[in-house]
């Protein structure tokens, strides 16, 4: 295959050339430690501050509320564990959802082992949190609500503003894992009443190994990494200056190009969804048709299994992902697909395709034609399809 069509941008994205270019000097000639006194390192302190400003501006908040981390998972861990620790005298109850990323779910499980109680909210069949259930789950001991901005698998966007309002009304802190949403959707932390927000560089054409946690001013969260006085004594370790510079550049580009990019991605995504649903029978779209990330499409093809589909797509130069058990290394398919009520065998046959601004209309046509061909081939080999056909003769 001459060409690779990369449709796994929810997994990671390539670093944009401008981003890489902005980073390079900070590996070599501008290698100074931002904490150093001499003039030569002063610029490095400045670029870190500028990067913080760029991100704060994107979120409509103050520069000092942005704390750099090693990525989304660290940010999620920090937000949850530090909140639990800081507010344990107020209560021991946390509310989250069944469709969070494992960085949240496994951290919650860890907290449960340490005396905290966690409510995992159900979602409706589109993957959206039910606000009434959220309200019902609130107890006097609830200290934190952590609900993702948009889901990584099915792309569903949560009613974050309403959730933020409910949290505020009840005087409960609100954290959102915005790893999939930041840089793709316009997020203003004050408007949405967000107290903490996690984001990651490599989901928006920035480098891997860098992310940040927004912490609203006044929250008494302690340091997660102990050591030096970096990040206002809240996250020790010499700053990842090239990473921080690259992240800020990526944020700048993604914010500046958002309107145009989102428009383009949405139109291609809709074309993809429309063609697949129209041309491949026994197929469903997972997640909400409208309230979904601009670049996300997630399908379930009945009677076939996702890993087979992925390997065959790969042989045709198409990179996608699946929530099938075989791709997760366990016997259970994706917890997100099960949470929206899919039976196991349909969850096994899922395919997630996530577009980028590089995706073209020709790509989409080629992908649909190829998926169609492969689904047909796999169904012709499937005993489930055989049974289905016989039962419906």
């Amino acid at each position: 295959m001459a060409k690779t069509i990369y449709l796994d941008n929810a997994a990671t994205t390539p670093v944009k050339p401008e981003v890489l270019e902005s980073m390079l000097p900070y590996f070599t000639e501008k290698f100074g430690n931002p904490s150093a006194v001499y003039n030569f390192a002063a610029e490095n302190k400045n670029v870190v501050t500028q990067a913080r400003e760029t991100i704060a501006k994107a979120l409509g908040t103050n520069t000092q509320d942005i704390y750099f981390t090693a990525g989304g998972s660290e940010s999620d861990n920090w937000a949850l564990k530090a909140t639990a620790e800081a507010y344990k005298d107020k209560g021991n109850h946390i509310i989250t959802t069944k469709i969070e990323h494992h960085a949240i779910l496994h951290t919650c499980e860890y907290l449960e082992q340490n005396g905290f109680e966690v409510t995992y909210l159900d979602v409706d069949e589109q993957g959206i949190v039910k606000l009434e259930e959220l309200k019902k789950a609130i107890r006097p001991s609830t200290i934190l609500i952590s609900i993702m901005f948009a889901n990584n698998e099915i792309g569903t966007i949560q009613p974050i503003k309403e959730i933020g309002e409910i949290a505020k009304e009840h005087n409960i802190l609100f954290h959102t894992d915005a790893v999939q949403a930041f840089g793709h959707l316009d997020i203003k932390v004050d408007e949405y009443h967000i107290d903490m927000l996690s984001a990651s560089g490599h989901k928006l054409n920035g480098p891997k190994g860098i992310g940040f946690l927004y912490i609203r001013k006044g929250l008494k969260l302690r340091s997660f990494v102990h050591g030096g006085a970096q990040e206002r004594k809240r996250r020790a370790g010499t700053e990842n200056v090239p990473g921080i510079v690259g992240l800020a550049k990526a944020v700048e580009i993604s914010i500046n190009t958002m309107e145009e990019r989102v428009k383009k991605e949405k139109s291609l995504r809709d074309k993809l969804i429309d063609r697949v649903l129209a041309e491949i029978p026994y197929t469903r779209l997972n997640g909400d048709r409208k309230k979904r990330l601009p670049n996300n499409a997630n399908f379930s093809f009945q009677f076939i299994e996702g890993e087979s589909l992925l390997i065959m797509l790969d042989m045709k130069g198409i990179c996608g992902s699946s929530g099938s058990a075989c791709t997760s290394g366990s016997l259970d398919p994706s917890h997100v697909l099960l949470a929206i009520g899919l039976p196991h065998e349909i969850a096994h046959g899922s395919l997630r395709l996530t577009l980028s601004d590089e995706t073209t209309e020709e790509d989409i046509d080629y992908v649909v034609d190829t998926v169609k061909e492969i689904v047909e081939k796999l169904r012709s080999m499937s005993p489930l399809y055989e049974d289905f056909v016989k039962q419906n003769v």
Partner: protein
Amino acid sequence: MYSEKVMDHFTNPRNVGEIEDASGVGTVGNAKCGDIMRIYLDIDEDGIIRDCKFKTFGCGAAVATSSMATELVMGKTVQEALQVTNKAVMEALDGLPPVKVHCSLLAEEAIHAALWDYAEKNGIVIEGLKKPKNDIHEDEEDGEEY
């Protein structure tokens, strides 16, 4: 992740399909875990497997092990087919990743299930063959007249 042989059998699976009026059909696995294999055997009066076909719902390894299993039992006697173990299937495929070993077990079970069906239909006992435990489609026996 997969050996060349596995990829070959996955992308060009041998003996995919159904056998009408098969001597024995075995279906094992379940959709919940993401793997279902069905093996059809055509066995002649001398107890020799004249034809073997399969259908599989599952990952690349599941398809490849089914394909290889059909090749390994083709032309064999019932007794010889019984000796086709999951290990033999794996070796013939130049190995499988550890998480996929269960696929080869499923292939072995599918053959055993088809042989069991054959034995039941003909009222015979195949020495060394145990009742398959993984047959999830017991109610499908009447489906064979198709």
